[in-house]
């Protein structure tokens, strides 16, 4: 049994694709613009944070990677979304199909070429990631893992575009479908998650440590008496009906989001009190919080008394303490990104398989509007 895909066949197609792209299109110009945009974003970010305390490098890294992913999602679909039906239109697909190349050779070759170009975009952005690393505060492991996941996400988007280019006769339709799918993954998942929140809301009785409702009435500032601050000692345990949102049932919607996958793959964890602007970190925290579900677990009483000054000053600020607890919980929660990675992997492999099937000849059933040669 012969393998449906061969190294020589894939190389033939990939070389053909890259040669054509390098000669006809304005990729050098697009790459230049891309470099300037990422550069401008990195420069502005640095200008904003250079005199701030904290890990300026981490902020720079997060912002740059966020933009690389965002702009990548705009550029990469255009590499493959009109590939197959565009070749059909120009009458160069059928002449390849009658050679000894298999349909898998053609699909994989085109994917490799598109992926190589998307890596060139990543390479053009790399000086700014290196800058962030030099500025400090970013671990090499974090950089490499996030980059690896990013490269994988770009490959999946390439495969999606290629599949749509085999599904529609007109190039405009496949381009629109590809961008819609990418939008559904990046925005649709977040919107679906937000819309699911009211459905997932249940009323539950919660034990809360709080100031009694009557406290302020009982401690009205009287004449001569100055304003009285409540203390932790004033708080009592009460049981209350409270809406609880079970995001632990719908967190997987967020795991489908490429931004969440890339962000959550970054393993660096900082205390939540850290106030630097790190978009990837925030996305990751959000997704993990959703996965964890309502906090605290029902066994622990909810403490609403944090504003009240601590009776023992040695224990530090109550708010900070609770945040520290939350951070520890988050880091214990299983990561979200492996699920997203598996999901995206299934999408990518599935798209490639559909594309291979659609290129198989001789054709028995010809879809409406499709031409062969």
């Amino acid at each position: 049994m012969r393998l449906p895909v061969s190294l020589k066949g894939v190389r033939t197609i990939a070389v053909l694709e890259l040669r054509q792209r390098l000669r006809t299109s304005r990729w050098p110009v697009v790459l230049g613009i891309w470099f300037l945009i990422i550069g401008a974003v990195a420069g502005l970010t640095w200008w904003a944070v250079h005199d701030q305390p904290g890990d300026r490098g981490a902020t720079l890294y997060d912002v740059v990677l966020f933009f690389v992913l965002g702009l990548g999602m705009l550029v990469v679909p255009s590499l493959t979304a009109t590939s197959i039906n565009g070749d059909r239109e120009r009458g160069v697909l059928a002449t390849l199909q009658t050679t000894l190349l298999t349909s898998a050779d053609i699909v994989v070759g085109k994917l490799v070429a598109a992926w190589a170009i998307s890596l060139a975009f990543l390479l053009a952005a790399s000086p700014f990631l290196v800058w962030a690393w030099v500025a400090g505060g970013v671990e090499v492991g974090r950089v490499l893992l996030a980059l690896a996941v990013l490269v994988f996400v770009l490959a999946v988007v390439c495969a999606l575009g290629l599949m749509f280019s085999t599904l529609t006769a007109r190039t405009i339709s496949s381009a629109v479908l590809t961008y819609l799918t990418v939008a559904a993954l990046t925005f649709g998942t977040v919107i679906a998650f937000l819309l699911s929140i009211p459905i997932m809301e249940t009323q539950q009785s919660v034990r809360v440590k709080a100031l009694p409702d009557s406290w302020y009435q009982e401690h009205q500032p009287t004449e001569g008496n100055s304003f009285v601050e409540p203390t932790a000692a004033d708080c009592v345990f009460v049981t209350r009906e409270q809406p609880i949102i079970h995001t632990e049932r719908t967190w997987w919607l967020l795991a489908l989001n490429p931004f969440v996958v890339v962000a959550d793959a970054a393993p660096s964890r900082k205390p939540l009190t850290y106030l630097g602007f790190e978009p990837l970190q925030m996305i990751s925290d959000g997704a993990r919080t959703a996965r964890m579900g309502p906090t605290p677990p029902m066994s622990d009483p909810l403490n609403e008394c944090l504003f009240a000054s601590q009776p023992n000053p040695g224990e530090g600020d109550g708010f900070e303490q609770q945040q520290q607890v939350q951070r520890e919980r988050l880091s214990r929660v299983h990561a979200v990104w492996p699920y997203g990675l598996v999901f995206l992997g299934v999408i990518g492999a599935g798209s490639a398989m559909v594309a291979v099937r659609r290129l198989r000849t001789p054709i028995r059933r010809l879809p409406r509007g499709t031409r062969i040669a």
Partner: protein
Amino acid sequence: MDAVAGIEVTGVRRAFGSVLAVDHIDLQARPGEVTALIGPNGAGKTTLLLMLATLLAPDEGSIRIAGIDPVTAPREVRAQIGWMPDGFGTWDALTVREVLETVGAAYRMAPVPARARAAELLELVHLGDLADRPARVLSRGQKQRLGLARALVHHPSVLLLDEPASGLDPRSRIELRDILRQLAACGATLLVSSHILTELQEIADRAVIVAGGRSVATQDLSSDSGPGVGGHRVSQWRVASLDQPRLMAALAHHGVPTRLLADAVDVAVAGDLAASELLAVLVGDGIPITAFAPSYGALETAYLAATEDRK
């Protein structure tokens, strides 16, 4: 009958939705011969060629190319066939030479033999001096020649050519004819679709006429087709004269079979030598001859008869 070379098509039918492109086509193309596929536009020629080129599966009927079924073993068939589509597109950014080398790689040739073959073919189709120009600057006729070279890269034994002569200048047509005849002489099977009858008559050994998706007639063009004279090859020649009655009388006197046309006479003679002798005799008789040329009336008549009921 399992190892038949050439092309065998039996009862092939193919519909696209409700449109019946090929209704029932029977066809045989033998090795060493050029078979013409002729018919009006929309007769199903291109659809048939797509099926032969392993791109489209027939709904009914069977196809054998070099004895192999293109539906069940497309890969084996592809190694045998060279296909030149109508309206040939090419990778515009590549040079002419790179186009042929890429096709060679697609047929799994190693780079060095592929380069050598590309150079050889560029010489054959007279594109040598354009070899390093981008394919997009080629004229339509030059693109056709590149298309032919493309189809020949892997030394196919069966050639499927869809309108190969369209867009060619007269000189290129003659060269195309010579290339095709030479390939046939080397034992290849050639199936050429066209609607330029005069040209096919020069190139083809037999013609299959298709109309309305059906093969309606097969016309033999090489062997005896008229009233045979002692096993010689009989051909039709068209003679015109300023004095037609005297021409008719002279032909009748020499016992030459004739068919009277409006402004000329078709005569059947046994080969080129007999034709030149007849011309000498007629001139010797003092008949004012204005034209004496091979006639393609036979194919034309068959074609017109076959496609008569076309709306």
